C-alpha cells in the first residue's frame, strides 16, 4: 500500500533512487534488464535536467542579489557627495531595471560607463575571460562583442533552453528569439520554454516543464540556500561506483565549473545511456 508513502518528487531524490535501481539491477537474477534500465535512465536524464535548471536559477538569484549589493556599495563609496538619496535610489533602480531589461531582451548592450565594473552581464552575447577552462559551445552570431567580452550563448538541444555562460556564472535567457538570433535552428514548439527573470524574485515557474519542479521553485522563491545536501553522500557513494561524470552534481563549485559546458551535458546524457549498454 502506498497511502502513507512519502513521495520524493524532487529531482535530487529521483536521481539517487534511479542510480540505486541501476546499481541493484546488476545483481538481479536473470541479468540486467535492458528495457527497465533504459526507462530508468530516462527518469535520470529528466531529473538531471530539472536539477541543473534549479541550480542555475538559484545561482542566478544569488548572483543578482550579490551584484545589486555590490553596485549599491560601490555607488555609495564612489560618489557619496554627488548623489543625494533620491538619485542614488533612482540610479539603483535604473541599474536594476537595465539589468532586468537586458536580461529579458538579451542582446542589448547598456552603455553606462559610470557604473560598469562588469559590463558583461548586460549583454547576452559576450563573456568575460572566464575561469571556465573550456566550453564546447555555439557562439552567438550577433556578438558585437568587443575583444574583452567572451560571453557565449548555449542552446541545449534537448530542452531548448538558452543559457549564457559568463564569468563561470550562468544566466538563462528567456526569449527563444535569442536562440533564433544566435542561429540555432532546432526548435520544437511543443517544448519551448520562456524564462523571465525579474529583479528580486525569480519567477521560475516557467523554467521547467515538470510540475514537481514548478512546485519546488515556488517554495524556494525567496530562499537562496535551500538546497538539501543530505543526499549528496548517497549520491557520491553511488557515483564513485560508476566512476566520473556525475561529480558536477556533488558541489556547487563543481557545478559552476562543469555544468556550464554543453559538452559535459552531452557526455552526461551519453553516459547515462552507457549504463544500460552491455
Amino acid at each position, binding site marked *: 500500500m502506498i*497511502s502513507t508513502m512519502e513521495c520524493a518528487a524532487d529531482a535530487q531524490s529521483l536521481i539517487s533512487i534511479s542510480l540505486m*535501481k541501476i546499481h541493484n539491477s546488476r545483481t538481479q537474477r536473470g541479468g540486467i534488464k535492458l528495457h527497465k534500465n533504459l526507462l530508468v535512465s530516462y527518469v535520470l536524464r529528466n531529473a538531471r535536467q530539472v536539477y541543473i535548471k534549479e541550480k542555475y536559477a538559484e545561482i542566478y538569484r544569488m548572483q543578482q542579489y550579490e551584484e545589486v549589493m555590490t553596485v549599491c556599495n560601490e555607488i555609495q563609496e564612489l560618489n557619496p557627495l554627488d548623489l543625494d538619496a533620491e538619485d542614488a535610489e533612482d540610479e539603483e533602480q535604473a541599474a536594476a531595471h537595465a539589468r532586468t531589461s537586458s536580461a529579458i531582451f538579451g542582446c542589448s548592450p547598456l552603455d553606462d560607463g559610470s557604473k560598469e565594473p562588469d559590463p558583461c552581464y548586460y549583454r547576452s552575447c559576450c563573456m568575460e575571460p572566464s575561469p571556465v577552462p573550456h566550453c564546447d559551445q555555439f557562439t552567438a552570431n550577433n556578438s558585437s562583442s568587443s575583444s574583452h567580452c567572451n560571453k557565449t550563448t548555449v542552446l541545449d538541444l534537448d530542452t531548448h533552453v538558452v543559457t549564457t555562460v559568463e564569468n563561470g556564472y550562468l544566466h538563462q535567457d528567456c526569449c527563444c528569439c535569442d536562440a533564433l538570433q544566435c542561429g540555432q535552428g532546432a526548435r520544437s514548439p511543443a517544448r519551448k520554454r520562456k524564462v523571465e527573470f525579474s529583479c528580486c524574485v525569480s519567477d521560475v515557474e516557467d523554467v521547467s516543464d515538470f510540475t514537481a519542479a514548478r512546485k519546488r521553485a515556488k517554495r524556494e522563491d525567496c530562499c537562496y540556500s535551500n538546497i538539501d545536501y543530505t543526499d549528496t553522500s548517497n549520491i557520491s557513494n553511488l557515483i564513485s561506483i560508476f566512476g566520473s561524470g556525475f561529480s558536477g552534481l556533488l558541489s556547487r563549485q563543481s557545478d559552476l565549473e562543469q555544468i556550464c559546458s554543453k559538452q559535459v551535458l552531452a557526455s552526461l546524457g*551519453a553516459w547515462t545511456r552507457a549504463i544500460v549498454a552491455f
Partner: protein
Amino acid sequence: MGEDAESPKINHTFLRDYVTEADVISTVEFNQTGDLLATGDKGGRVVIFQRETDSKGESEEVGETGDSGEYNVYSTFQSHEPDFDYLKSLEIEEKINKIRWLPQQNAAHFLLSTNDKTIKLWKVSERDKRPEGYNLKDEEGRLKDISTITSLQVPVLRPADLMVEVRPRRVFSNGHTYHVNSISVNSDGETYLSADDLRINMWNLGITDRSFNIVDIKPANMEDLTEVITAAEFHPHHCHLFVYSSSKGTLRLCDMRSSALCDRHTKLFEEPEDPGSRSFFSEIISSVSDVKFSHSGRYLLTRDYLTAKVWDLNMDKGPVETYQVHEYLRSKLCSLYENDCIFDKFECVWNSSDTVIMTGAYNSFFRMFDRETGRGVTLEAWRESSKPRAVLRTRRVYSGGKRRRGDVGVDSLDFTKKILHMAWHPSENIIAIAATNNLYIFQDRVNPETQLQ
C-alpha cells in the same frame, strides 16, 4: 509445496500464508479451439488444463450447453530449467515468458514455450492403449527367462488408463542475445517469430539451427540507444505482415515482402505526445507493454501503463479509441516508480468478436471495455469474494466525487495483487485470469456464445 497450479475447483480449503515465487503464473493462453488452456509460471513449469465435456444427455437442461465448461488439470511438465551463461556470467531465468499454441493438425497438440533465451516446441499427446503380450518381457517389463517361453504370441493393443505424454520436439536456442519478450506463430503454420529487446527472428518450426533476423534496432553505439522492442505479433491472416511495439509508445507494421531485413517499417503508428502532461515519468508510462491484433486483423490493441488503445491499421496518426484503465494512478507515479510498480507489464486481450477488450490492473482488479458503448467495468479476481458459480459483481475505485458503498479508495489499493496475464476463449465468453499464483476462470452463462457480427 505447490507442485501444481491451483485449479479453481479444488483447493479452496488449502489456504496459503505466503506465495512461493516459483508458483507465480507468468503467462496464460488458450489454444485455437479453446479446449485447452496452458499456463506457465516463474518456476519454468507449464500446466495444461482441459475443458471437460459432459457425458451426453445426462445433465443437459433446456438452454444449457453440452459442455459443463469446467477446466481440469490435463498435464503438467517442467518446460525450462534455470540456466547459466558462462561467457557472460549471467544466470538465465527459467520463468516462462510466453506460451503459444500451434494450430492443431492431428491428434497431438503442439505448443511453443519460451524463457528469456530459449524457445521449445512441445508435443502433447494422449495414450489410451498399451501393448500387451510381449514374448521376451513380462507385464512389468522385466526380461523373461527364455527357458520359460514355450510359445510365441502376437502383442495386442488393449485399452488402458488415459496417459498424457509431453515431449520436447524442438529446442530453438542461441538465437537471442537479449531477453525474449514475445513469440508469435505465423498463419502459414510453418514459421514463427521471436522478439527480444533489440531483434526479431523468424524461425521455421522444423529447423532449430538457423533463424532469420528480420528486425534489428540495435544502434552501432549502444550509448545511442533510445528505444527497445517490447512486443511483436504476426497478423492473423496475412503471413507477410507483423507488428512490433516499442518502449517509446510507437507501433511498427512491417511487410516481409518488401525486404529481408524489415528495419524500415511499412507503417508507423504513433500518437503525438501531449506537451502539457509531461513529467519525469512520461517515457515510462508511454512504453507499450502488449500489442494484439484483433481477430479480424483490422485493428490493433495496445496497452501502456495507464491506458489501453485501439488502432485502426488504416490510420497511423493516432488510436481510434483510448480507454483509461486506472487514470487515478497518474498522481501516484512517483510512488509507483519507487516501488517498481510503474514497470509492470500488463497484457490486453480481445474477445472473440472484437467488441470487448480486457486488461488487468491492481488490487486483483481487471477491466473490460465495451467498444460499442465505450463504457468500462471493473471486476475482481479474488478468492474471498468469488465462490464457484457466484456472479461477479462490479467494483469501483473511488477517486473523487460521490463515494458509494463498496468503493475502494486509491490509497487502499494493494499493489502487490496485480493482474498482468489473461486470456479470452477464442469463440466463447470464457476468460482466464492469472492473479499471482492463482488462476481464475470465469464464464458468461447468460451469453455463453459470443454474438458474431
